[in-house]
């Protein structure tokens, strides 16, 4: 077959296979599967299908052990996204995905196409996308390159999301030296579908037509996702750079409407988006899931560029394209709908029963390979693992030798001014967080809360809560514990609205898995993910693995981004994360321990990134989340704010100024504990939530019954945040004497807000 195509194609041999990223063993395996040398197009197919990005060959053996089932889970990992029933005959479908490498090369288009891709994963399953989140990480902002990357990425996410009419309701934004050579852009989307109307990516029904719909195919992104995301960056990757994919949100918006409309005809059998490795990956996966084959004619594919070769047509990653299978003879209905939306839609092939992929071009067969060995039975590796030699050194921290904080007030200012803790409003003001009219809590709260409206526009009483979280430093210090903490934090954020965590999705961003130390981090992280998901009753219903996040041999911190989704039954009863009125009691749920390892304070005030991350008690987390759900439902809890980065002092300050613009509410807080004051103020012990309530006794009683440690620490009101410390020893001798109570913090909330609000803008305004 090779050479018979009439175009000048390179000679296919082992050397070319290596250039395509295939190992020598993989090359042998291809020869065995085919019983001959592959054609150039076939080689391209094997290389993308067996790339890390498409095959998960390094991670799959570990991912297998994750808990993926649950009472409400309708679709687990393996499809475009996972689905969970939320009652009322509805399901939420969600997933998170990375677009790290393309965004580093071209931040605006890379991020934009990342949003476009995750949206297609969602609506291809029959769901209307109703909410997006983004998790983005950069190098330090004193580097002009990273200021431009941040601006470009935010512009890309906003430009695309705003235009397609899907609100971006939350996310996270982080900065660290480890991302200087490799930024992270993870995009999450959640859609809503009828529970009995979920579409799968299956090419079933021998003889059924295979339809290509959406944008025309160009030369964009050939080997983009697959090769770029499956190799490290180095000086040479510039030369190998594929044509950058440009997002076309207008076409995507039309595609969303057309697909949702077409799905209602009842003639669609299967549908999937053309993501990484384009036409190849989507057709192989659809045939593989249905245990069928596909026969396709490339001459029918709508083409944007002249003289596209079969290799290019098969591997192009042009955006905004879908592959559909309909019932034979009824395709007209679907084609008409696409035409109404001015979108290309053509029959390009048929489903066959022989389990082979046969592709024709200019009257010749350019591909003829069995589906399963390429898709379902791609190579899997149990890669070597090794504990990093410096792990013990990372984890070493003798608190006694760390000089206590001498000026807590100055420390608070430094923390609030850091880009990691400061306001992210500069980012999210550029996102339309309101479109679709369901945003109850948008960016700025602990978790976003989105009211559920049916496709016909009638509102339900339900709302969906979601949050995306990770503390990469903790994951670097201890990947397993750090990942557990990320799951716990994300679920806790969701619980702070009053919602019950349902399920989660994850994006595992790691370095080069061929290095045993990185592989160890990945395996440990997945282990922690499984443990936490199990313990919190939030199965893993979808996810994405992004490896080779390193440049010139320097890997990013392990960054398993976790997004937990929860359900609130009565949207009118929810809690917010800021103080709403003066005169309420402030309670602290959970326990503050002397934990400063891996904290922001330790890094910003002592220049240290070391120690063990704070411990997580998953049983406590679950009880705490249950208590919050009950507290909110019963109307006792009006404010609930997770205590995370920066500790209690930062959390209290945030409660005072993150409400509606111009509303500031101070607090008087008295802490009585026997631990060092800096740990009390800035330690990041997990499992803690600040709540404000009008009925502290009732809430304390409930907490006692739920076995959640709780204590009243103060009252909301005034224009100042005042935190005082009465050491326990004094209490024991009969109540604090006035002179022994020290004032740790005493500041105007407005001043704290001003510092916090300027953290990112003032750095972006630097020259250059």
């Amino acid at each position, binding site marked *: 077959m090779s050479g018979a195509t009439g175009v000048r194609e390179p000679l296919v041999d082992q050397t070319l296979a290596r250039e395509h990223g295939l190992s020598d063993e993989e090359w042998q395996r291809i020869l065995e599967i085919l019983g001959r040398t592959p054609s150039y197009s076939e080689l391209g197919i094997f290389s993308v299908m067996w790339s890390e990005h498409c095959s998960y060959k390094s991670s799959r053996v570990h991912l297998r052990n994750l808990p993926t089932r649950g009472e409400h889970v309708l679709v687990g990992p393996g499809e475009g996204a996972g689905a969970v029933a939320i009652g009322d005959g509805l399901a939420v479908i969600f997933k998170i995905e990375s677009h790290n490498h393309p965004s580093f090369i071209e931040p605006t288009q890379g991020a934009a196409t990342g949003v476009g891709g995750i949206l297609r994963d969602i609506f291809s399953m029959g769901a209307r996308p109703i909410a997006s989140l983004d998790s983005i990480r950069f190098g330090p902002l004193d580097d002009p390159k990273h200021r431009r990357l941040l601006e470009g990425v935010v512009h890309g996410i906003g430009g695309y999301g705003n235009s397609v009419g899907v609100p971006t309701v939350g996310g996270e934004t982080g900065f660290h030296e480890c991302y200087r050579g490799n930024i992270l852009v993870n995009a999450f989307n959640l859609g809503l579908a009828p529970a009995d109307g979920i579409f799968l990516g299956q090419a079933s029904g021998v003889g059924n037509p295979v339809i290509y719909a959406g*944008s025309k195919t*160009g030369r964009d992104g050939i080997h983009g996702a697959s090769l770029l995301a499956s190799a490290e960056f180095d000086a040479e990757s510039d030369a190998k*750079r594929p*044509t*950058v994919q*440009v*997002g076309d949100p207008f*076409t995507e918006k039309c595609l969303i409407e057309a697909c949702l409309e077409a799905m209602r005809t009842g003639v669609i059998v299967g549908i999937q988006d053309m993501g990484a490795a384009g036409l190849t990956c989507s057709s192989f996966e659809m045939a593989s899931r249905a245990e069928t084959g596909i026969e396709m004619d490339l001459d029918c594919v709508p083409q944007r560029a002249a003289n596209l070769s079969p290799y290019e047509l098969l591997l192009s990653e042009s*955006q905004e394209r879908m592959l559909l299978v309909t019932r034979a003879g009824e395709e007209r209905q679907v084609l008409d709908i696409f035409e109404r939306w*001015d979108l290309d839609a053509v029959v390009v092939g048929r489903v066959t029963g022989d389990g082979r992929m046969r592709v024709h071009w200019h009257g010749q067969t350019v591909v003829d390979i069995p589906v399963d060995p390429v898709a379902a039975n791609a190579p899997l590796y149990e890669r070597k693992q090794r504990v990093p030699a410096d792990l013990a050194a990372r984890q070493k921290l003798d608190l006694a030798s760390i000089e206590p904080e001498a000026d807590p007030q100055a420390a608070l200012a430094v923390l609030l001014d850091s880009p990691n803790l400061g306001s992210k409003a500069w980012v999210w003001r550029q996102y339309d967080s309101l479109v679709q009219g369901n945003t109850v809590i948008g960016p700025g709260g602990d978790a976003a809360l989105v009211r559920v409206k049916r496709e016909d526009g009638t509102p339900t009483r339900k709302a969906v809560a979601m949050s995306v979280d990770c503390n990469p430093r903790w994951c670097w210090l201890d990947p397993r514990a750090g990942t557990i903490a990320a799951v716990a934090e994300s679920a806790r954020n969701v619980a702070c609205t009053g919602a019950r965590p349902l399920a989660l999705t994850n994006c595992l961003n790691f370095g080069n898995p061929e290095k045993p130390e990185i592989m160890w981090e990945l395996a440990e992280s997945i282990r922690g993910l499984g443990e936490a998901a199990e313990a919190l009753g939030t199965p893993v219903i979808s996810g994405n693995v992004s490896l080779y996040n390193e440049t010139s041999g320097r890997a990013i911190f392990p960054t398993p981004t976790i997004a937990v989704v929860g359900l609130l039954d009565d949207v009118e009863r929810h809690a917010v994360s800021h103080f709403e009125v003066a005169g309420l009691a402030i309670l602290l749920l959970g326990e503050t321990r002397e934990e400063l390892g891996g904290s922001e304070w330790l890094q910003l005030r002592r220049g240290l990134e070391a120690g063990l991350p704070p411990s997580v008690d998953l049983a406590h987390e679950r009880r705490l989340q249950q208590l919050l759900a009950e507290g909110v439902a019963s109307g006792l809890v009006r404010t609930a704010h997770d205590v995370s980065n920066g500790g209690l002092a930062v959390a209290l300050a945030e409660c005072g100024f993150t409400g509606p613009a111009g509303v500031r509410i101070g607090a008087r807080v008295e802490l009585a504990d026997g631990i060092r004051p800096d740990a009390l103020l800035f330690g990041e012990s997990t499992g803690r939530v600040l709540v404000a309530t009008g009925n502290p006794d009732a809430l304390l009683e409930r907490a006692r019954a739920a076995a959640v440690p709780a204590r009243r620490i103060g009252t909301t009101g005034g224009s100042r945040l005042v935190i005082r410390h009465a050491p326990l020893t004094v209490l024991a001798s009969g109540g604090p004497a006035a002179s022994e109570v020290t004032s740790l913090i005493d500041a105007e909330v407005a001043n704290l807000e001003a510092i916090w609000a300027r953290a990112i803008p003032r750095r972006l305004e630097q020259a250059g």
Partner: protein
Amino acid sequence: MKALVHVTVKPDVLDPQGRAIQRGCASLGYRGVRDVRQGKLFEIELDAPDRAAAERLLLELAAKLLANPVVEDYRVVSIED
């Protein structure tokens, strides 16, 4: 001096704007419009010792600031005193 710089999308890169405009023309009845590509135009007023220096400066500026060389081409179209 006054200069004009053109920045255009590279030929293989998708230009959704241009495509949409072409379709708009067609639906307005201008069937003769076969292809449209949208680019950027910069009118720049600058001080430079001579035209050669101006051109050097403009090319540098275009590469660094006016164009995104990953997806765009640029050229200095005119320089007038």
